């Protein structure tokens, strides 16, 4: 029977859906519920991870320190996980604090072709005796062989697993099978998959990933995550149960946790909005959606046109500043390059 480790980014990716305004009590209540459901890893923080609270990608309502304190207090069985991107988070400012506050699992992320920016962060964390995974974001932008090359770098730096993210929700199941198979054949550490649901494929893609050999799967309560949301955790647990895939997560208790999340801090359940579909089609990072909608409304331009243009310019996470530039260009009706 295949066994997968579930990593739950409800309190991290979900923060994108509420412009990073989750409150301390939300972290507390959901950590408790996920802990009771025996979720192996609970990821918390700003949507873009440790040290990412900024005007560029959105300021967090609470500090990293406050989030980690609350999560640490409320997790006893589950491991406390965080996501971090070099370029936002540094060892000196952010990682040393997280290590000293007792974070268990560190997922060090880079864009799919930039694994070598993570070398020192992974090295530092392994040295500190932490569990460390490498994450390749926006993985649809690289071909399978490139992903394997990058994953090998992560493994050589000390990553104990490599997770690829479908940050834009652009994959169909065959795309996932192709990439996960290549990775499983190409590296010796476990491979993971993180889905987004822009094209309605998050659950199917997660199943395809496991069938291709992935052993780490990300899922959020009610799919609470950037854009159209992530793979819906409680659905995945149920589907995996049907397929005989072992997760160790208690189904009823994760259903309870999802109900609590919906009741307490999901103001609007993730849905595949028209704009999300366009964003997935153009392969643009799901986390852009709130800013695109806001700026489109302010400037009286069509958010779909903004996404199409962002897709053409191959915008990646962290390039949120392009949104206003594109909107102003569209507003002027200027011919774009």
């Amino acid at each position, binding site marked *: 029977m295949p066994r997968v480790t579930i990593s739950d980014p409800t309190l991290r990716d979900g923060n994108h859906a509420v412009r990073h305004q989750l409150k301390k009590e939300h972290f507390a209540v959901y950590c408790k519920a996920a802990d009771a459901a025996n979720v192996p890893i609970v990821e918390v923080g700003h949507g873009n991870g440790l040290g990412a609270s900024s*005007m560029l990608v959105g300021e967090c309502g609470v500090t990293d320190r406050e989030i980690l304190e609350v999560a640490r207090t409320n997790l006893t069985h589950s491991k406390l996980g965080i996501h971090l991107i070099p*370029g936002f988070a*540094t060892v*000196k400012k952010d990682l040393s604090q997280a290590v000293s506050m007792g974070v268990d699992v560190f997922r060090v992320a*880079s864009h799919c*072709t930039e694994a070598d920016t993570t070398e020192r962060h992974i090295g530092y964390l392994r040295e500190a005796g932490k569990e460390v995974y490498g994450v390749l974001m926006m993985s649809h932008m690289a071909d399978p062989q490139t992903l394997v090359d990058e994953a090998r770098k992560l493994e050589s730096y000390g990553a104990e697993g490599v997770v690829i993210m479908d940050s834009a929700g652009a994959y169909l199941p065959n795309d996932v099978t192709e990439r996960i198979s290549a990775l499983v054949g190409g590296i010796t550490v476990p491979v993971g998959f993180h889905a987004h649901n822009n094209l309605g494929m998050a659950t199917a893609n997660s199943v395809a990933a496991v069938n291709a050999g992935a052993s780490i799967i990300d899922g959020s309560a009610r799919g609470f995550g950037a854009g159209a949301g992530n793979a819906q955790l409680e659905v995945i647990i149920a589907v995996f149960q049907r397929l005989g895939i072992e997760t160790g997560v208690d189904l009823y208790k994760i259903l309870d946790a999802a109900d609590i999340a919906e009741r307490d801090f999901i103001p609007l359940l993730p849905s595949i909005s028209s704009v999300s579909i366009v964003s997935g089609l153009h392969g643009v990072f799901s986390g852009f959606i709130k800013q695109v909608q806001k700026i489109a409304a302010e400037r009286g331009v069509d958010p779909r046109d903004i996404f199409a243009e962002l897709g053409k*310019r191959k915008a*990646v996470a962290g*390039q949120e500043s392009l949104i206003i*530039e594109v909107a102003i260009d569209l507003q002027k009706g200027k011919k774009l390059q």
Partner: protein
Amino acid sequence: MSAGPKLKVAIIGTGNIGTDLLIKSMRSSSLVCTLFAGRNFSSSGMKKANYLGVNISDRGIDAIIEDPSVCDVVFDATSAPAHARHWEVLREMRKTVIDLTPAKLGEPCVPAINAESCVESGGGNINMITCGGQASIPIAYALAQLQQEIEYIEVASSIASRSAGPATRFNIDEYVDATESALLKFTRARYAKAILILNPAHPPIDMQTTIYAKMGTPDVTEARKAVAAMAERIKVYVPGYEVIVPPTLEAGRLITTVRVRGNGDHLPQYAGNLDIINCAAVAVAELIAARASSSTVVRFPRGKSNA
């Protein structure tokens, strides 16, 4: 420019930064590159230098130790930890060092703001901060002149993945740290944050930097004037520098975006990050050359480095 002898410069570090600096130095009417030193004759930068007929060495800093008269000024294009070791030696030898690593040992220098004072009293070590710092700090500085206090300044730079060599990637924390310290120093903001995004897109994107400022109730018209004036000062030594979103109020924050297109010297035009820090470094070296060859005070900036 007087017809006196050219200022002798050595470049240590033969990666993207060093190789681009070489081409810019060779074009300068007041500089001559007398040594291009790295560790490996088979690197692409070394091959290029050899082809161009430049004196090359694979002995790094030792090439200067063995022949101290080889140069007057040293460009250090290695890495922050290596620079710390180089500076110990070069200080002893009384060489002026223009540091292109984020080592933060020397006086942080943005030519449009403080080249003259760095050359006059920089203690022989002039630090060029970072590429994102060169693009953003003058704008942040111009904004800081408008009002007494900036509460928070944040700068986010996106650069093409291909323009970032191994040292840049390995030292991404030092990049963030050096950019933030210099921002605080030049703007006296209460908080500063720097973000670097490496963009893997093909074709590669141009370097773009966005400056966000939280500052009371800024006068947007005045801010635009100040930023436009500063951009003109930068363009004198970085021809590809352009303000593409002038200061714009968005949710109470003043947002300005600049784009830097390179001169296409070593890497193609998208590598504005390489260009801006190197143009700044060459501008400083040319100022040193002008001071050395003339007793009259030369105001900076004087003209394009490739004039």
